[in-house]
Structure formats: C-alpha cells, structure tokens
C-alpha cells in the first residue's frame, strides 16, 4: 500500500497509440502500455516519435538521450523498454524483472511462432489492415518442425478472418479455401466458409467445397447464424439506428452524419 508521487510532466502533444486507439498523457501511462502490451511494443515501438514525446512532453531529456544512444548501438532492443520502465519508477524492480522474463520467453520462441502470436494480438486489437502483411510474411517461412501444414492452415484461416472483418468477402473466401487446402480435416474452416456465404451470398464457392458442406450436418451452424442475427437485431447500436429513423429530418441527418463519421473512424482504425 503506498502512494506514488507523480512528477510534473508538461504534456502538450500526447503520444498516440493507434493500435489501442488511445493517446498517452504521462510517463505512467506509457509504462502501463509497455508493461501490459509486450507484443505491441517489442517491435519498432521506440521510434523518433516516442523519443520526441519523452524529451519534449515528459521533459525527460536525459532518458531520451540514453534511449537514443542505446538505439544507435544496436544492442538488444528489449533493454530499451526495460530502461524506460526503470527510469519512470512506476513499476517496482520485481515487476520489471518479471517483465524481462516475459520478453525473454517470447524471444525464445520460433520466429514464425512469435510472429503469429504478435499478429494474433494485433488481430484482437482489431488492427486488421496492419495485421494482414504480418500474416502474409509468416507464409514465407520455409517448412520445419514448427512451420508445417497445420501452421499454414491456421495463418490462412486468420487471414480469412481479417478480410471478412474488412468486408472483403472474395479475399476472405480464397484465404479460407487455402486454409482448408492445408488442413482438409478441419471442419471449423468449412464452418467459417458457411458463415461467410451466409453473410455475403454473392461469394462463389468452389464445387469441391460445396460438396463437402453438403456432407456435414449444419443445424448447429444455422442455429449460430440465427442467434447472431437475433443478437445483432437486439444490439444497442441497431436500436439506436432504428431510433434515428423515427426522428425528424433535420435530426435524422445530423445523427446519420455523426454515425457515418464514427463508422469511418472505426474502419480507418482497422486499416
């Protein structure tokens, strides 16, 4: 139990973290993001923009200089993150040591496996546009004991999900098809294709896949689709939209403009 005394930080230009959709206003928030999101910050997080934020807004010129020198020396980049945590005194040394272990464990992983974990993390953060090239890069790894057909299938499946969420139905279907190519016993992939077709009926399904779908009992999938539809209809967002249509023209247009703006922002964030 204690109180951490905060230093005065004259932040005029907050540091934007688009992956999290937030801006940071203090060294404590920066440490929190670093600590809670190792997969986000392990690659290229400490760049010129961050150094400028540390130097000018957090008024930590000494730390910025240290980080700059460290970066130039080309030493282990993880140590740069640890240095930030240590200098800001937000986390205790025990916690920083645990964080170091987490970074070591992640770095020990096969590069493809690490890349997949990182891409999955960004997928969870709905950064679909950014994550697609990361998944595509994983497909370039040559086969070995980790990178096998199952791995390729999983990566293609994830690519399918990314495209589907960006409303790119054709690309999504092709990715799922590839995933099924590498793992043709996986009914889950067929299920995803079935859902995709339900969402985008114009998608052309290859005859081979169509015949496979016919062989499977699809009652539970239909139930899921029905449940999702109902959930969608009852969602707050849809109800808000319904309400909007009942308003007079001026208010309706105003509300619609706001909503479209919001959707645009959300879509841009995904990209």
């Amino acid at each position, binding site marked *: 139990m204690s*109180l951490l005394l*905060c230093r005065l930080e004259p932040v005029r230009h907050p540091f934007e973290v688009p992956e999290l959709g937030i801006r940071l206003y203090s060294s404590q928030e920066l440490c*929190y993001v670093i600590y809670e999101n190792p997969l986000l910050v392990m690659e290229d997080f400490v760049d010129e923009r961050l150094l400028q934020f540390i130097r000018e807004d957090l008024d930590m010129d000494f730390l910025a200089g240290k980080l700059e020198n460290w970066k130039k020396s080309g030493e282990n980049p993880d140590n740069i993150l640890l240095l930030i945590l240590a200098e800001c005194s937000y986390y205790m040394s025990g916690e920083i040591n645990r964080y170091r272990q987490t970074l070591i464990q992640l770095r020990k992983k096969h590069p493809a496996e690490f890349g997949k974990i990182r891409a999955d993390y960004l997928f969870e953060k709905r950064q679909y546009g950014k994550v697609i090239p990361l998944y595509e890069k994983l497909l370039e790894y040559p086969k070995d004991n980790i990178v096998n057909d199952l791995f390729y299938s999983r990566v293609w499946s994830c690519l399918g999900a990314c495209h589907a969420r960006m409303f790119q139905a054709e690309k999504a279907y092709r990715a799922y098809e590839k995933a099924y190519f590498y793992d043709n016993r996986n009914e889950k992939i067929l299920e995803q294709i079935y859902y995709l077709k339900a969402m985008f009926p114009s998608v052309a399904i290859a005859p081979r896949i169509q015949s496979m779908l016919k062989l499977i009992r699809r009652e539970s999938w239909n139930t899921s689709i029905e449940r999702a539809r109902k959930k969608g209809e009852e969602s707050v967002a849809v109800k808000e939209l319904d309400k909007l249509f009942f308003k007079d023209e001026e208010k309706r247009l105003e509300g619609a403009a706001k909503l479209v703006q919001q959707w645009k922002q959300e879509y841009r964030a995904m990209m």
Partner: protein
Amino acid sequence: MDGLIVGLDLCDTYTQVSCMGKDRVWSFATQICKKKQENRWMIGAEAYELLLSGEGISADKLLSMARRERTVVIDGENIKGRELLQKFLKLVLAQVQKEYASSRIQQLVITLPGIDTQIMDRLLYCADYLGISRGRFHVISHGESFLYYVLNQKKEVWSSYVGLFDLSRQGLRYYEMKVQKGIRQTTVISDYENFDGPFDLNLLETETGIRKADRMLCSFAEGLLAKKLFSAVLLTGIGFEKQEWAEDFMTMLCRRRKIYGESNVFVKGAAYRAQDYVTIPSEFPYVMICEGRLKASVSMEVMHKEKLTPLVIAAPGDNWYEVRTTLEFILDNQKELVFYIQHLDSRKKNEVVISLEEFPSRPNRTTRIQMRVAFLDERTMVVMVQDKGFGELFPASNAVIRKEISL
C-alpha cells in the same frame, strides 16, 4: 532590482508606512474622504481639512469594512469596503512614492493585528489593483512584525525573553518572544495574550481613570512577567506615547529589566520583513512560530525509489495563507490518504485519514489523484482530492472529496 521596500501597518484606526533605508515613518488615520460632486479622494491632513470645510464625505474603519465586505453610500454611490481600502492604500503608497520619487514598489509587506481568509482575500485584490504581483506582496501578523523588529536589534536585546506591551485604541495586548537555539535549527517563537476585558484609552483623561488604568496594567503584567528572565521589554501603541501616567507599572517593569519605548514596532518590523524577502539567503534562517504561521508539521508517506519516504506538505513556521500545494499521486493498492500531524512541542504524531472509497474502482495503479492543500487559518487545513483517472486508458470521473482537518 530597484524600487521601494515598504512596510505598512494597517489597523482599523491608524495606518503607518515605512521604507527600508529611510527614517521617516508616515502615519495616517485609516480613513478616506471624497470631495462632494467630484471624483477626488483624499487621505490624511488633506482629508481632514476637507471634512472641516464641509466639502467632503468620509468613511473610516476601512479594514473592518473590507473584511466584512460592507457597502457604504458615498455621495449617492454604493461603494464596497474592498474598493475603499484599495483607494486608500493607493493614496498612501502614492504619497510615499512621490516623496522618494520612485514609482516602483519592490516589496510590500502589510502587517495586521489579525489575519483571516476574508481579509487575505480582500488584500490580494488590493495587490492586483495596485499592480503589485503576488511575489512582491505579503501579509504578516503583528506578532511576526514584532519578531522581525526584535531580530533586527542587537543580539543582547533578544538573548532572553522579549516582551511587548501594545496599548492602542483596539485595546491592550501583550506579545512575548523567545529564541530556542537547537543543534539543527534555531526556533523563534512569539505568542500573544489579550487583556481580559476592555481597556479604554479615554480612562487616561481623568485622575481616577489613570489610577485605574495603571492598576489594570500592573495586574496584567505581573502575571505575565513573573519568573522569567527578560532581556528587553518594549512599549508601543498610542497609549504608551507618554508613560508618566503608568507610574506603578513602570516602576514594576524597570526592576532588573531594560525597557524600550518604540511607537513604530510593527511598521518597522514589516519593513525589515520586506527587506528579508529580497535578501538571499535570508538573514534570519530561523523557524519562526507566531500568529499567522503554522505550529505543526503536516506530512505524508510516499513511495520514492521503492522506499517509503516522508513528504512534508507544510512545516512549522510556514505562513498558513501561503501554503498552497498541488500534488498528484497514483494509488498503489491504497484507498485512503494518511496525513501525519506533529506539533512543534510534541513528539507524538497524529494520524488523519481521508477515505477515497468514493472514487471508482479500477485496476491497481490506474487511479491518479490530484490533491490540493490550503489553510483556512493556522489550525484548519483544507484538502481537496480529485479523481483524475488514468488518461484515456481509464477516464477520470472528476469526483472530488473535500475535507477540513483540524491541526
């Protein structure tokens, strides 16, 4: 930086001004006069003449008027007490500035018989009106002026207790000062005691009244001066301008004590204090305990470099009205603020807890709070705690908890 270093003793009946390095002490009735049908305001002799000629309208007791935020009608116009005080102070300072041909006031210290938040507030408005920045404008008590006056005398004057009897139209008050030399620091303490009951200077107009006043003074002084070694006793105020009337009192006082009569103790003390503000380092690096200054320390424990470290919020000797602290903390598994209050004359620390349970529950170390501390008087601290959230990660509720803590 050049300019006048001014001490100003502001009371309800009189006002005195003195500048460092100058001999003259200016004295005015705390009264302002307006020429009828004209926007001309006057003080001092001019005001008196105007009043006698019947061409002026006056207002007096300006300090009380400003303190109580009273409004008066002068020449058909409603004027607030604060505005009258502003005009009065401007005219007072203008006379001094004119005399010494200096337009800039480098430091102004106003000394008052008593300080509270109301009068502080009004005087700060006056400072703005006079165009004197807060860093160059200070308010101290008569007790503090007394300390600075004495400390600026030869050391033998304050080698033991120093007493001061102040007999003015407001009544009789006794101040006492002692210096405690410690290994780490020297503490200078002054306290005061009011005469129990009225002491009307009109008594001195009749023989019987004089005898009665002398007896009252003697009985008051006997109890206060007994069993103490005094290096000096000072007499000030209009009542002691002549001391012949207090025959018994003077005889009693002069027994093995040095007595000094000085009518300008407070104004000169204020000027010395003003001088000390511009002297770096201070000529008197002592802890001063007197009216208007804190007699206790307030501290908290905070984590610094993974160690619990005391953080002093206010220290003994700080001017209570100048203590304004704003700090930000992050709560680490903590749902309360604990203040440690220690009085100067005690080793015991009292704990005061402010619960923060009202603030929203969030993951550990993601609640930032802003704590603002100020004082309402020497014994009452006000703490305002505001929930600031944790940036955009955990938005602020801006909930505020306010608590008054009695020291």
